[in-house]
C-alpha cells in the first residue's frame, strides 16, 4: 500500500501544457477516480504516476519516497490499459506470469500465483488460450490478473472498461470494486464515464484543461459542484443552467449576475413550501421507470425527469414545484459556485 502525492506536477509537450501544476494527495488504499472529457490531462497524469511519461516539473511521492525520476518498473505499480495490452503470442497463463518471470521469481511460485489469480478471476479454464481466442471481457480479466499477480501497492487503470459493452461493463465494475476491497491497495482509475466514477470512487478528481476542477467524494461532487463545468459534466440528463427563467434563491444578492442550476430530477408536484412554476411540455420521452420532459418556461427551456405516474402529455401546461435549497447558484462571471 502506498499514498501517492503529486506536488505541482506539470507536463508540457513543447508549448502545450497538458497538466498544470497539479496538487493531489491520494490516500493509502483509496480508490481515486480521475474524471474528465478527452484531452483534460487525466491519462497524462496517470502515465506520469506510472512513469510512462516524464514529469516536466513538480514532485511525485509514493509515501515519503520521491519517485519523480524512477523508471516504471522501480515504482511497483501495475497498470491496466483500455486496449488490454495483452501479449498476443503468449497464452493467458504466460501473460499473467510475465511480470513475475521478469522478476526472476522461481517457477513453482509463479505457477502457484498464476493458479490463484486465475481462480480469483475465473480464468482457470482459459489458461492455455491465446488472447485472440478470448472475448473482450475475458481479455480485460486477464489484464487485471497480470496486474494483481505481483501484488503491487498501486493499481493504475486507464479507461479499462471503455471497450466493453454495457452489460459487461456493469459486471466488470463490480469485479473491480470487489478487487479493491480484497486487495486494499491504492487504485487510481481514469475514466470519462461519470457512472463509473460515481459508483467506484472513494473520491473523484474532476479534471479539465490540465487542472483539477474539483476533488471530492462522489456525493460532494454531485451535490455541491464547484463550478458550472463540474455541474454539467456529472448527471444525466445534464443539469439545467440558466441565467434567467429559474427563480433565484432569496439569499442571492439583488442585482448580482448569477447562473442558476437545476438538476432535472429535483422537481416535485407543486406543494406548500416549494416554489411553484409551470411550463408547456414540448417533448415527452418515456425512460421506463421515469419520464424525461422538455419544458418551455417563459424565456427558457429546461429538461426534467419525473416519475412515470405523472402521466404527462405533449402540449399540456405542467405545474411543478422546486425546492429553492436544491438550486445550484454560480457566479455568472467566474462560473464558480456561490453558497449562502
Amino acid at each position, binding site marked *: 500500500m502506498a499514498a501517492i502525492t503529486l506536488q505541482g506536477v506539470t507536463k508540457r509537450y513543447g508549448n502545450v501544457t497538458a497538466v498544470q501544476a497539479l496538487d493531489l494527495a491520494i490516500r493509502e488504499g483509496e480508490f481515486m477516480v480521475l474524471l474528465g472529457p478527452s484531452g483534460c490531462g487525466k491519462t497524462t497524469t496517470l*502515465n506520469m504516476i506510472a512513469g510512462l511519461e516524464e514529469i516536466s516539473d513538480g514532485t511525485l511521492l509514493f509515501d515519503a519516497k520521491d519517485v519523480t525520476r524512477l523508471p*516504471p*518498473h522501480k515504482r511497483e505499480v501495475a497498470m491496466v490499459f483500455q486496449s488490454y495490452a495483452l501479449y498476443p503470442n503468449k497464452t493467458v497463463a504466460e501473460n499473467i506470469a510475465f511480470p513475475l518471470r521478469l522478476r526472476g521469481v522461481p517457477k513453482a511460485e509463479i505457477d502457484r500465483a498464476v493458479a490463484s489469480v486465475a481462480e480469483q478471476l475465473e480464468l482457470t479454464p482459459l489458461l492455455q488460450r491465446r488472447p485472440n481466442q478470448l472475448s473482450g471481457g475475458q481479455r480485460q480479466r486477464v489484464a487485471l490478473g497480470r496486474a494483481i499477480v505481483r501484488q503491487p501497492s498501486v493499481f493504475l487503470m486507464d479507461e479499462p472498461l471503455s471497450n466493453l459493452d454495457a452489460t459487461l461493463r456493469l459486471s466488470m465494475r463490480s469485479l473491480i470494486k470487489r478487487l479493491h476491497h480484497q486487495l486494499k491497495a491504492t487504485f487510481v482509475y481514469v475514466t470519462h464515464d461519470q457512472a463509473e466514477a460515481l459508483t467506484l470512487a472513494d473520491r473523484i478528481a474532476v479534471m479539465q484543461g490540465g487542472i483539477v476542477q474539483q476533488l471530492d467524494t462522489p456525493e460532494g461532487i454531485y451535490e455541491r459542484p464547484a463550478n458550472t463545468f463540474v455541474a454539467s459534466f456529472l448527471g444525466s440528463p445534464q443539469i439545467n443552467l440558466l441565467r434567467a427563467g429559474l427563480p433565484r434563491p432569496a439569499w442571492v444578492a439583488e442585482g448580482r449576475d448569477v447562473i442558476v442550476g437545476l438538476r432535472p430530477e429535483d422537481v416535485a408536484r407543486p406543494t406548500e413550501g416549494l416554489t411553484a412554476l409551470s411550463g408547456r411540455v414540448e417533448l415527452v420521452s418515456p425512460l421506463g421507470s421515469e419520464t424525461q420532459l422538455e419544458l418551455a418556461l417563459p424565456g427558457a427551456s429546461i429538461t426534467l425527469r419525473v416519475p412515470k405516474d405523472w402521466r404527462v402529455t405533449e402540449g399540456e401546461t405542467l405545474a411543478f414545484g422546486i425546492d429553492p435549497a436544491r438550486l445550484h447558484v454560480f457566479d455568472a462571471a467566474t462560473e464558480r459556485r456561490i453558497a449562502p
Partner: protein
Amino acid sequence: MGLRLSYDDRSAAVLVFPVLAVLLVVAAYPILYSFWVSLHDIVLTRPLRRPFVWFENYERMLGDARFHTAVLRTTVYTVVTVSVVSVLAVGVALLLNETFPGHKLLNALLLLPWATPSIVNGLMWKWIYDPTYGLMNAVLVKLGLIESYRAWLGDPDLTLLLISNAAIWKQMPLAALLLLVTMKAIPDDLYRAAKVDGATVFQRFVHVTLPALRPGLMLVLVYETMISIRHFDLFLIMTQGGPGDASYTLSWLIYVETFRSLRFGTGAALSYLLAMLTFLLSWLFIRFLGEKTA
C-alpha cells in the same frame, strides 16, 4: 442440367478472359514447354536431332560434379545473404522506427540502393572491388589494414562473400521497409505494459517486437531466399562463375549449360530442379515459421 451461368458469372468470365489468355501464352505455355524440353536431349548445335530421353537429363545433372559444386555455392551464398539481410533489416527497421532529426530523410535515402538497377549495382561494386583503381583497396591501404592493392574478386575464399555483400546492399532496404511496416503496427500499449511489468529494453524487444515481427520476418525470409537462390545478374557482371568455380552457382550453371553449351535439354532440367528447390524451401519456411502466427 446443363451449365447455366448467371449474368454476373458470364460478365466475370468475359472480364477475366484477356488476362487469362495472356497468362496462358506467356506463363503456362513456357512452363509446360520447358518441361517438355527437359525431357529431350536438345543440343542447339545439332538442331535436327532431338530424341525423347525421359528423365535422363535430370539423372545426368544430379550426378554431375558441377551440379554438386553449384548447389554448395548457392547454399553458402543464400545462407549468408539471407541471414545478413534479415539481421541488418531488423536493426535498420528498429532505427527508422525511432523519431530523431532527419529520420524522414534517412527513410528516403534508404531506398536508393533498392531503386538502383541490378546491373548498375553490380558494376558499382565491381569498381569498388577493382584490383587497380578500386575504392576498397584505397581505403584499406590508407587505413593501413593492407599493404598493397589486391584482386579481391580473384580470391576464391572471398568471391562469394563479396558478391553477397553487393546483393545485401541492394536487397536489405526493401526487407527493412517491410519490417518497419510490421513494426509500426505494434500497438504502443504493449511496450508500455511491458515497461510497467518490468521489462528491460532487450526484454521488450524479445517479448514484444520479435513475436510481432514474425509475419514480416517470414515474408522477408521467403522472399530473400527465393531471390538469392536464383540470383544471376551479379554473378554475370562480377565474376562469371570464377575464379575457378568459386562463384559457380545454380543459376550460373543453368546459364552456362543453356546459353554457352547450348544444351537446352539439360539446361531446362536444371531449371526445373532449381524451381523445385525454391518451392521446397518456401514450403519449409511457411510450415515451420508460419505455424505460430495463426
